């Protein structure tokens, strides 16, 4: 706790400690590059990972500015939980899904870039002028008993109503997610074991387990059908998504995995 107070005092005189400056100048380009890369990356997974970079850097910035609690929250909740949600969405829609590059409104992208850069510059220069020479104050009082307690004191006294109302926000989000993503089984729609097995063994279904691919086969490829004891091939052993095939002689040859290049030009 006393460390925090000292840190607050450090920040109170107007010079930025060297460690803080060094860390900032290392991480700031990473954060900014990550953010820009996230927007520009064509692959959704790359976007997500670049966003993680930005969020981690921001977490470190919070810690640097004597807000360790919010820094840890940033890392645990955002880079942990929220990013996981992003990844589930990517797994849902597929990483090959890409934005349509056709512009519906002509020149919209150019206008958006120009306006965006202009807005960023306006805000950046304004803030540089506005807070460039400001002396931080009140930090030592706020963190007097430690950062977490400082937050707790405000959260559970003055902002208690906002805190309680946040629960309404979270539950709305939960109900919304279930409403949009969950199909409720109606009574009678849920099949029990008896019905399920009856459906499975109705006439015409082959009740036994399927023979595995490659069983008694000439190759151990998943695409090679198994040979039944009577010597015929069974297509059932091959997954429906894989077209069954016979291996050619070249394919059946031993593969060059010993670094011998002449044999390695098979595939």
């Amino acid at each position, binding site marked *: 706790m006393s460390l925090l107070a000292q840190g607050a005092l450090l920040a109170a005189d107007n010079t930025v400690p060297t460690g803080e400056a060094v860390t900032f100048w290392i991480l700031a380009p990473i954060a900014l590059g990550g953010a820009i890369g996230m927007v520009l990356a064509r692959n959704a997974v790359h976007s997500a990972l670049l966003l993680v970079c930005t969020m981690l850097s921001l977490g470190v910035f919070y810690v640097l500015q004597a807000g360790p609690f919010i820094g840890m929250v940033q890392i645990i909740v955002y880079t942990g939980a929220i990013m996981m949600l992003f990844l589930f969405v990517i797994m849902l829609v597929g990483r090959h899904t890409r934005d349509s590059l056709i512009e519906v409104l002509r020149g919209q992208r150019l206008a958006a870039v120009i306006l965006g850069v202009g807005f960023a510059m306006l805000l950046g220069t304004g803030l540089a002028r506005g807070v460039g020479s400001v002396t931080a104050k009140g930090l030592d009082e706020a963190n007097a008993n430690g950062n977490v307690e400082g937050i707790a004191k405000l959260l559970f006294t003055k902002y208690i109503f906002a805190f309680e109302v946040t629960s309404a926000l979270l539950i709305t989000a939960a109900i919304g997610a279930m409403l949009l993503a969950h199909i409720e089984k109606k009574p009678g729609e849920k099949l029990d074991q008896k019905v399920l097995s009856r459906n499975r063994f109705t006439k015409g279904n082959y009740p036994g387990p399927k023979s595995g691919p490659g069983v008694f086969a000439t190759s151990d490829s998943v695409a090679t059908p198994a040979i039944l004891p009577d010597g015929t091939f069974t297509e059932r052993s091959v997954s429906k998504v*894989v077209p069954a095939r016979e291996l050619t002689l070249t*394919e059946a040859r031993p593969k060059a*995995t010993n670094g011998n290049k002449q044999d390695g030009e098979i595939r």
Partner: protein
Amino acid sequence: MDGYLGSYATLGVLLVVAGAFFVVAYTANRVLRTNAPSAAKSTSYECGLDPAEGSDWAQAQIRYYVYAFLYALFAVESVFLFPWAVVFDGLGMVSVAEMGVFVAVLALGLLYAWRKGVLTWT
């Protein structure tokens, strides 16, 4: 190595050392090993089988998303529980009531999920 940032400097040094260890180990590996690439070596390894053709993507069940969302919900709740644990002896029963209401409302979400059958897989 003292002061507020000093305590994090240790962490920073540890991170740098870890990174350096990783880089040195892999560089040494690359320098010392024999290097004979072949096409067969760079195919994906699937337990000795030929790699299956086709797309490498299978659509994930949206149910995973709902679970992940419920997890995120309670992660946010735990974020509020930390500072609460720090002050709760100062405020006493009042703070128990405060957090009780918050957790109870969130528990409604879990109750709803349970009754709607979100928590059972089949």
